[in-house]
């Protein structure tokens, strides 16, 4: 993975940049001591690191605008950063860039239960959005695994999903409005407490644009009343094919579970060794969760279990208490940690049509042997969003490169069967150079033309999303 070479002219102007930034921000908001900028050298894709020129922590939309204006005038690239939990390198800086962190923008600005929305500053963490409304019985639906730490700004940039999006949708389906600052410092308001903002769907365009079109400082989010209850059922199968068919049959039956999670044997074994959740040792395991009142849950689970039984499961475990429910989820929730116990791992994020599950799992198994690297699969089966976890040894020379090559083959396979490179993590730098496998040159060209409109000088997070050779002339202009 390459990043552009830093521009020496920008590096040489560091003192001028710092002093101009200090004119518009309090002193402690401009971090330029190399000992301190190292804190911003990477995000959760820790394989790649590079300290930025400096980091700024503005505390208001106006300060964000002031910072961007200066960087725009001086031609300095800006890398927006939420909480730095990106697995795709979305917040990886270059040596000649300014990290714009929104961590200090974390207030709740307005809660409105009658109209069912909350307005927050974008540095607020995902979980603390729900935290702000749960006393009234409400919640914010998108729930990425990193929700304790990840910021709404990052969720919007990557259009984050989570385990429960089969029912509730991803960020873009729950975002009603934003305040956003363009690279030249212009502040724009889009949408708000009403549905379907007027004009072109700018909100839809901005969500998932990976911090390349503007910096979102405030967001209006849809909140929902919590369901009366939820309960999972665990189903074990001795074949991936049968588990895949079962998922498809459940969906066809008209039950809309809130989540359908899938784990394969390597992942089950790893989590059992780690979390001891009492999972059966089988080829494929499903966790299906439904919501509603007790009686409604009973009715839905009856339908689901009848379908499961028709596929001869080797295990069918209903939960009879909150403890049993927690135990069913325990293994799934510890899956990543469990794999991390075994070795370093890389987490992929391709999506495939649900009908292709058995084929894709079989091919991943074959490739695992070819590359000599173990892989476990844990994913959101209802929507085909896969998370293969490839195990490797970061201390072994060449292992990371081998792992990346294996990962790239899996993602190409996802595209080949009618899916895509990334379902919820984003492209960042991680999948950047694979974009040409999913999109034709014209498809990429028009996406880059969108960036030309919002950021004509290509200063916002410029080395991401598009293959470097494809975006070179624009970045150099």
């Amino acid at each position, binding site marked *: 993975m390459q990043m552009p070479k830093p521009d020496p002219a920008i590096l040489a102007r560091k003192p001028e940049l710092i002093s101009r930034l200090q004119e518009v921000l309090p002193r402690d908001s401009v971090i330029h001591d190399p000992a301190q900028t190292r804190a911003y050298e990477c995000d959760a894709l820790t394989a790649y690191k590079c300290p930025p020129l400096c980091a700024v922590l503005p505390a208001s939309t106006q300060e964000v605008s002031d910072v961007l204006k200066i960087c725009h005038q001086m031609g300095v690239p800006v890398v927006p950063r939420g909480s730095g939990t990106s697995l795709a390198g979305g917040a990886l800086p270059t040596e000649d860039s300014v990290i714009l962190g929104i961590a200090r923008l974390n207030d709740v600005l307005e809660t*409105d239960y009658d109209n069912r929305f909350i307005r927050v500053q974008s540095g607020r963490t995902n979980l603390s959005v729900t935290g702000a409304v749960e006393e009234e019985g409400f919640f914010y639906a998108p729930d990425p695994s990193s929700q304790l730490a990840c910021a709404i700004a990052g969720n919007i940039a990557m259009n984050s999903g989570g385990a429960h999006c089969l029912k509730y949708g991803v960020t873009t389906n729950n975002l009603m409005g934003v305040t956003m600052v363009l690279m030249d410092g212009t502040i724009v308001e889009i949408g708000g407490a009403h549905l379907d903002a007027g004009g072109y769907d700018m909100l839809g365009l901005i969500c998932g644009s990976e911090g390349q079109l503007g910096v979102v400082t405030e967001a209006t989010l849809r909140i929902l009343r919590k369901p009366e209850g939820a309960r999972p059922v665990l189903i074990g199968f001795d074949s991936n094919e049968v588990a895949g068919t079962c998922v498809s049959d459940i969906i066809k039956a008209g039950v809309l579970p809130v989540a359908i999670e899938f784990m394969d044997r390597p992942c089950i074994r790893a989590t059992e060794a780690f979390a001891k959740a009492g999972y059966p040792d089988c080829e494929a395991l499903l966790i299906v969760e439904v919501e509603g009142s007790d009686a409604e849950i009973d009715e839905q689970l009856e339908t689901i279990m009848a379908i499961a039984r028709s596929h001869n499961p080797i295990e069918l475990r209903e939960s009879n208490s909150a403890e049993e429910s927690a135990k069913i989820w325990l293994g799934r929730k510890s899956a990543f940690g469990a794999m991390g116990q075994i070795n370093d791992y890389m987490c992929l994020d391709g999506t495939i049509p649900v009908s292709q599950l058995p084929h894709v799992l079989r091919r991943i198994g074959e490739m695992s042997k070819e590359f000599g690297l173990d892989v476990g699969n844990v994913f959101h089966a209802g929507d085909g969003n896969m998370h293969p976890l490839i195990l490797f040894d970061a201390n072994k020379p060449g292992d990371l490169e081998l792992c990346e090559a294996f990962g790239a083959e899996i993602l190409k396979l996802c595209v080949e069967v009618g899916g895509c490179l990334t379902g919820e993590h984003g492209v960042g730098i991680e999948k950047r150079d694979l974009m040409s496998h999913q999109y034709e040159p014209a498809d990429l060209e028009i996406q880059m033309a969108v960036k030309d409109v919002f950021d004509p000088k290509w200063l916002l997070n410029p080395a991401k*999303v598009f293959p470097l050779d494809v975006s070179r002339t624009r970045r150099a202009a």
Partner: protein
Amino acid sequence: MTPKTEIELAEIIRMANAPLNIRGGGTRPIGHAVAGEVLSTSAMTGIQLYEPGALTLVVRTGTALADIETALDGEGQRLAFEPMDHRGLLGTSGTPTIGGVVAANVSGPRRIQVGAMRDFLLGVRFVDGTGQVINNGGRVMKNVTGYDLVKLMAGSYGTLGVLTEVSLKVLPKSQATGVLLFEGLSDADAVAALSGALSSPYEVTGAAHLQKGMDGTPVTMIRLEGFENSVAYRGGELTKLLADFGTPAFETDAAKTAEGWAYVRDVTPFHGRAGDVWRISVKPSDAPGIVANLPGCEALYDWGGGLIWVLAPPGAAVEGASLRAHLAASGGHATLIRGQGAHVFQPQPAPLAQLHDGLRSKFDPKGILNPGLMGQTE
């Protein structure tokens, strides 16, 4: 011109140097009139792929909506966003196409719970204003690969490109429907009742208030869908929760509930009546106040109050500029769906208008795709 293939369509656009009037079935003439040769997608038809177990449908844009609904019905599924039929309201005839539904981002009452048309659009193929074929998104539920031009195309009324193929998420039909009906509520009480229902855990899939119901008296409608026992249970719980607003009737007859919601979805009470029709999107609790400021007009509230349909009969003209100034301040926007006015769509503030125009100039540099339809400066 009625090309039969994407290639033919691309060639027409590539060669064109005068405005084109893009349309699907021509049943939704919303927006400023476009002077230009008609370019219709209606001959590009056919379902390309339908996987009921994956809830996905890929279809060419000229396909009749009715054909899609028939195919989905065969598998017990539907387009959950419940697109409205504009023919009665706009006095048009013809065959609505899925391309038109997407281009105008047409969503019905269920939008309040499941999302808008754009939330069900997974992928698009379109021809841009230079004749280039573009692909974006795909046919899977979760996809964040590159920019989301899929959403951008929904509701762009053919001004950014001509859609040729769309991928959609579909959902299973509900086993049962139940509708709570309150009679005689004031607008303010009705919106309060709808808000109470929508803020409950009972998964309301329709929340509307008609100042004049089918029998002429105000009626407030709350829809529940799902398995039969569950609908009955939630109907009972909501009746208790909303006791302050009276005792509702609970209608569970399938034909009657379907008819009632089609009446809301298609804004049937305004059909065949003279006057301008406005569609206003606002914060729900603002809605009764806005309607109160439009004397002589009649209103139908959908989306819990968040969507107001207003009929301004002759002599009760809505002052568009002041309505919009008010909405610009309080949040919301108004579209003149039927009638003559300087602006069909609410004009955007300057920085947003600039982005609009910028996108237009990239997607359609020759300015030939439905120019002026959305009223951008060109």
